[in-house]
């Protein structure tokens, strides 16, 4: 199997930075907007999605020589659905309260485009090492992106971080920017963060090109 150029480490770091699934590829917008109203929700969602993309990539990669092209999407979906269900059961068993808060968004990881995208683009064509590095990078990139939004939205919208109140009562009682924990706040924050990221990327490619 032809390996792509570059190392596994490069694949990993691409997933986090240059190819960040949320901020660069603009995939997985639905959970990004929905569960980032608190940092705790964002982190747990990131963790669950990372688990699923790792298992999906590793299994797809192990079976890559056996998967016939016309059933590959079926097999990807089957694998992803299985591990999302496992993740959902694990959350209900070990993190019950957070699982309640995430509600329907954990099962919705099944339709998170970035996961099936990695299977199709990387895992079906590469060895386990490369696929694992890719999955970890994408998972970490997803978690970081969600956490950035979670931090901004929770501090401004609830005055707290990880449920610890960090802004003074005067701000929290009735004056916190409630809009930040509502959908418009999600879009505003996401737009601002993607804008900043694009600005950084643009200045990097201008200044970095030696």
């Amino acid at each position: 199997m032809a390996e792509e150029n570059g190392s596994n480490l490069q694949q990993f770091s691409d997933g986090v930075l240059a190819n960040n699934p949320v901020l660069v590829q603009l995939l997985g917008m639905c959970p990004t907007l929905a569960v980032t109203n608190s940092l705790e929700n964002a982190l747990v969602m990131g963790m669950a999605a990372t688990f699923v993309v790792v298992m999906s990539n590793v299994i797809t990669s192990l079976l890559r020589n056996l998967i016939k092209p016309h059933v590959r999407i079926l097999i990807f979906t089957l694998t992803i659905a299985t591990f999302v269900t496992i993740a959902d059961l694990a959350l209900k068993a070990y993190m019950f309260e957070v699982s309640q808060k995430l509600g329907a968004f954990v099962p919705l990881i099944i339709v998170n485009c970035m996961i099936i995208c990695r299977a199709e683009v990387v895992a079906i064509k590469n060895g386990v090492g490369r696929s694992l590095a890719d999955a970890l990078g994408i998972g970490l990139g997803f978690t970081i992106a969600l956490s950035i939004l979670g931090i901004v939205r929770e501090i401004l919208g609830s005055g707290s971080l990880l449920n610890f109140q960090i802004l003074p009562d005067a701000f929290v009682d009735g004056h916190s920017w409630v809009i930040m924990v509502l959908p418009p706040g999600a879009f505003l924050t996401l737009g601002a963060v993607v804008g900043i990221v694009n600005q950084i990327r643009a200045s990097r490619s201008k200044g970095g090109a030696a």
Partner: protein
Amino acid sequence: MKKFIDESWLVLVLGIVFACLLAATQTTLQAKIDDNRARALNNAIAEVVPGLADKEELEVDGNQVFKCLDESGGLVGWAVKASGSGFIDRITLVAGLSADGGAIIGIKVIEHVETPGLGNKIDAGNPFPEQFTGKSAGLPLEVVKQTPQKPNDIQAITGATYSSAYVTDIVNDVITRIRPQLAEHR
């Protein structure tokens, strides 16, 4: 037939393997999940009925009803577990009634998947569920969007009128059905 097997054997094998994996996970974790649910229910009952030292579980009209007693065995209140449709999916809550069944002493939503940031304000710690404390159990509660005018008015959560209404409906329904039958279990 051979062509079918040839093309799809992996799908069939994976289907069976994953099904076994899921069954194993479910079997291993179900006990813990049930414990979590039971714990959430017990915590909710203790929060809703203060002074609770012991409880007796009954079944009244299809609902789990708990007769709540203090240390000396005296009746301090009733807790009823009820569920019904919510905006997204089912909502399960515990409603507390005073010992004579005349007043609602509180509610707590224990399971829901309402919209984060909006419908999830039916959770404890928000002003919405606190409105139920002290309401008379004799009149059905009505959801209003503006400031409540009548004693049996409940103000809806801004941006979550449906979730507010669904919770109120569940409470109204279970009280209407259960309350008349409490006397015989006293």
